C-alpha cells in the first residue's frame, strides 16, 4: 500500500512538472477548445504558426513575431506604438496565462490584426501549448 502511495506521488509530481505552466485559466481555455471540437494540441504547430507570415490588405507581411520576439523569453515591441511587450514565456513572466478573459481578448485582437481573421480553436490550443512550454 505504501508503495502505491509513493508511486502515485511520483506520477503526480511528473504530471505537475509536465504541466508546470498550467493555470486554472489555461485549463478552462483547453476545455473550451476541446468542446469546440479541437484536439491533440501541438506545441510544434503552434511554433510554426508563430512565425507564419500573412499579407495584410495593403500587402504588409505580418506574423506574431512582428511585435513579439521569436524568442519567447525576450520582450517584444508594438509595431506601431513601439511600446515594450513583456516576454510571453511564463517562466520569465509569471503573469502570463493567469486570466482567461485576457487570453481570449488578445487572441481575438491579435489573430485579426495578424492573419485578418479569428483563429480556430485548434490554432489557439496549439499556440497556447507552445507559449506555455516556453522556458
Amino acid at each position: 500500500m505504501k508503495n502505491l502511495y509513493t508511486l502515485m506521488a511520483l506520477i503526480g509530481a511528473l504530471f505537475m512538472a509536465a504541466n508546470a505552466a498550467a493555470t486554472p485559466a489555461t485549463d478552462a481555455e483547453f476545455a473550451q477548445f476541446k468542446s469546440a471540437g479541437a484536439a491533440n494540441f501541438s506545441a510544434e504547430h503552434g511554433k510554426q504558426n508563430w512565425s507564419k507570415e500573412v499579407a495584410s490588405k495593403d500587402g504588409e507581411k505580418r506574423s506574431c513575431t512582428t511585435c513579439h520576439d521569436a524568442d519567447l523569453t525576450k520582450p517584444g515591441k508594438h509595431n506601431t506604438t513601439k511600446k515594450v511587450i513583456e516576454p510571453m514565456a511564463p517562466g520569465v513572466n509569471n503573469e502570463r496565462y493567469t486570466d482567461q478573459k485576457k487570453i481570449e481578448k488578445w487572441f481575438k485582437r491579435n489573430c485579426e490584426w495578424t492573419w485578418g481573421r479569428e483563429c480556430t480553436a485548434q490554432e489557439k490550443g496549439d499556440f497556447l501549448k507552445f507559449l506555455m512550454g516556453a522556458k
Partner: protein
Amino acid sequence: MQKSYKLVALLAGALFLNSGSAMAEEGFWSWLGTGTIDGWRGVGVVPVDSKQYKDECGSCHFAYQPGLLPTKSWEKLLTAEGLHDHFGEVADLDKDTLQTLRDYVLNNAADKSMHKIAKKITIATEDGEAPLRITEVRYIKRKHNDIPAKMVKDNKDVKSLSYCNACHTKAEKGIFKEDTVSIPNYPDY
C-alpha cells in the same frame, strides 16, 4: 412658501460650490503652500485615475488623459466599430469593459474639465468636425509648431508627437509645462 425658497437657495449654493471646486483646485493648493510640490502645480489635464483605463489603453500606448479630447471625439473613438479599426489596429473590448471605459472617458472629456489644457482643447475643437487624433487639435499643433522635424519625426527616440511621454517627463501626471520637457538626444533644447 418661504421654506421652498430656502431649499432652492441651498441647492443652488451646493451646485455652485461643486462646480467652483474644480476651478479653484490649482489656486487652492498653491495657496496652501503645496504649490511647489508637483502634486498640483501646473497640472494641465486631470491625470488618469481609472486603473482599468490605464491597463486597457496603456498596454499598447500612452494612456492619454480623457481631458485631451472633447466629448464628441471620444464618442466616435470609443465604440465597438471604432475600436475594431483603431488607427489600423484591432483594439476590440468586451461589451462591459467598453461601456465602463466609455463612461469614464466621456465624464472626464476636455469639455467637462476646468483644467487649463482641457479648456484650451475645448475651445480649439468647438467648431468643425471632431478630431480623432490629439495631434490634430489646433491648439496642440500650434504648441508644437516651432519644434523642428529633426527633434521629433526624425529623432529615433521620439518619432512622432503621439508619444507624449517621450519628451514630456511628467505627462502621466497631466503636466505638460515647458520646464518639464526633455527631448531625447537634444539635451540643450
